[in-house]
């Protein structure tokens, strides 16, 4: 009787699926790329939110063409975390969104940390340290570098909130994605007056009111419902950040299991009924998009590392597997510290890759490949151990 559409808008592409709740089956899927803006200085990673909208429209349209549209009852949107979509008073995008992977805001993090009284005080007040990827330093960056744009700023939204805004016309934020802004007091799930004021007195008026994640964002705007061919009044749920929505899609909505996601960066997270704040600030004390919390660890060096080894040797994926399998577990003592991009957990921003244990046996393609795969997995395990140490 009922179909629900799920959308995941990522850094470089968007996916949509249709779930038939009666049969519990995914009955349609579609995917489309969207572009990052090229030619920016190192560390700057930006995208045009309008591109996300047109790519989302394309994949929802493609899914809609494969299903009985009259049965669609709701849409839920997942989006890359932390990106800053700046809107003016008419809801128009002021400038491209700076993304989670933009590291140009390290000076702003230092300023905000100082204003709140140092790293320990920040964790006491919000539960999370200010990291360059988070939203708050991006807002301060706009104020410091583009004052004319900052003057026009009336609404601060995250990527998935902007897609929700497109679908419903409502400015809305739920706890899960909001917990990655740096503006949220994650323990109490309210905006942190101190964090907002540290950026600017106007920030409090630009953030939407917070809603629990089970509240709907709204209903599809009639003209969009008509375009997709969905019933009038189709619901748009709160949505959330991609890790929060990945938790739901892996059934990680009650304590007991851990989800590991191996991508360009790797994340490892678990549902918790209570806030899990890391005094060292290594585990991100996020909220879930299901009414609980989602302590999470993000490492920067996962598939990017193994991909670079693969291309270095000119291998296909199957070649990589075959060669890695030619060396024994543990690679005869060869191991790789995989920090090709530096690392954030453990906190080694100036770190590099290090092969350790080279000898006459291990200096070979198979061993180098296997040690890279093992090394990146050991990097993810750092997070699993840290979660366990915090009692998750």
């Amino acid at each position, binding site marked *: 009787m009922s179909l*629900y*559409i*799920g*959308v*995941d808008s990522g850094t470089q592409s968007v*996916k*949509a*699926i*249709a*779930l038939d*709740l009666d049969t*519990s*089956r*995914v009955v349609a*899927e579609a995917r489309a790329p969207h572009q990052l803006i090229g030619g920016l200085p190192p560390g700057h990673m930006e995208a045009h939110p309008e591109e996300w909208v047109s790519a989302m429209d394309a994949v929802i349209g493609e899914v809609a063409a494969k299903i009985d549209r009259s049965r669609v*009852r*709701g*849409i*839920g*949107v*997942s989006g890359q975390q932390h990106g800053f979509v700046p809107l003016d008073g008419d809801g128009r995008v002021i400038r491209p969104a700076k993304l989670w992977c933009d590291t140009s805001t390290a000076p702003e993090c230092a300023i905000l940390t100082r204003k709140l009284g140092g790293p320990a005080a920040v964790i006491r007040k919000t539960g999370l340290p200010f990291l360059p990827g988070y939203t708050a330093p991006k807002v301060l960056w706009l104020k410091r570098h583009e004052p004319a744009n900052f003057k026009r700023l009336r609404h601060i939204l995250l990527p998935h909130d902007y897609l929700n805004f497109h679908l419903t016309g409502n400015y809305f934020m739920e706890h899960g994605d909001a917990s990655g802004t740096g503006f949220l007091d994650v323990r109490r799930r309210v905006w942190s007056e101190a964090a907002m004021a540290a950026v600017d007195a106007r920030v409090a008026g630009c953030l939407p009111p917070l809603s629990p994640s*089970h*509240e*709907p964002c709204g209903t599809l705007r009639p003209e969009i419902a008509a375009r997709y061919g969905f019933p009038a009044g189709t*619901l*748009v*749920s*709160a*949505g*959330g950040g991609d890790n*929060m*929505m*990945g*938790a*739901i*899609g*892996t*059934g990680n*909505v009650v304590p007991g299991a851990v989800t*590991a*996601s191996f991508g360009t960066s790797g994340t490892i997270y678990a549902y918790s009924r209570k806030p899990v704040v890391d005094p060292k600030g290594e585990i991100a004390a996020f909220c879930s998009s*299901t009414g609980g919390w989602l302590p999470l660890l993000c490492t920067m060096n996962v598939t990017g590392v193994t991909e670079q080894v693969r291309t270095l040797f000119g291998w296909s994926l199957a070649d990589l597997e075959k060669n890695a399998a030619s060396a024994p*577990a*543990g690679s005869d003592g060869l*191991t790789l*510290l995989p920090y090709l991009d530096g690392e954030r957990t453990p906190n*080694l921003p*100036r*770190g*590099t890759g*290090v092969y350790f244990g080279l000898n006459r046996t291990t200096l070979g393609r198979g061993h180098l490949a296997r040690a890279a*795969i*093992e090394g990146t*997995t*050991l990097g*993810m*395990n*750092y997070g*699993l*151990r840290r979660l366990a140490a915090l009692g998750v």
Partner: protein
Amino acid sequence: MAADVFGVPVVAMAEDESAALGGALQAAWCDSKGRGSPAALAALCSRSVALDESTRCVPDKANAALFRKRQALHDRLCSDLRGAFEAR
């Protein structure tokens, strides 16, 4: 291999697009509340989220012990090399 490193059983999801599936499930959850017949999210998930049991791996005892030692070596290298990384 992941099971040996993590020291726990590891299994892949049947559906690769977990975040999109999560979106659809959250919408179904939200809709059930709006219609006055609230479903538990965990129940919705257990019906619609499937594991690919053919991929399930349990840790091999000997390998898991080997990777515990390897992890200790990583920890040691990290702390021993910290100064060298920063001086670079």
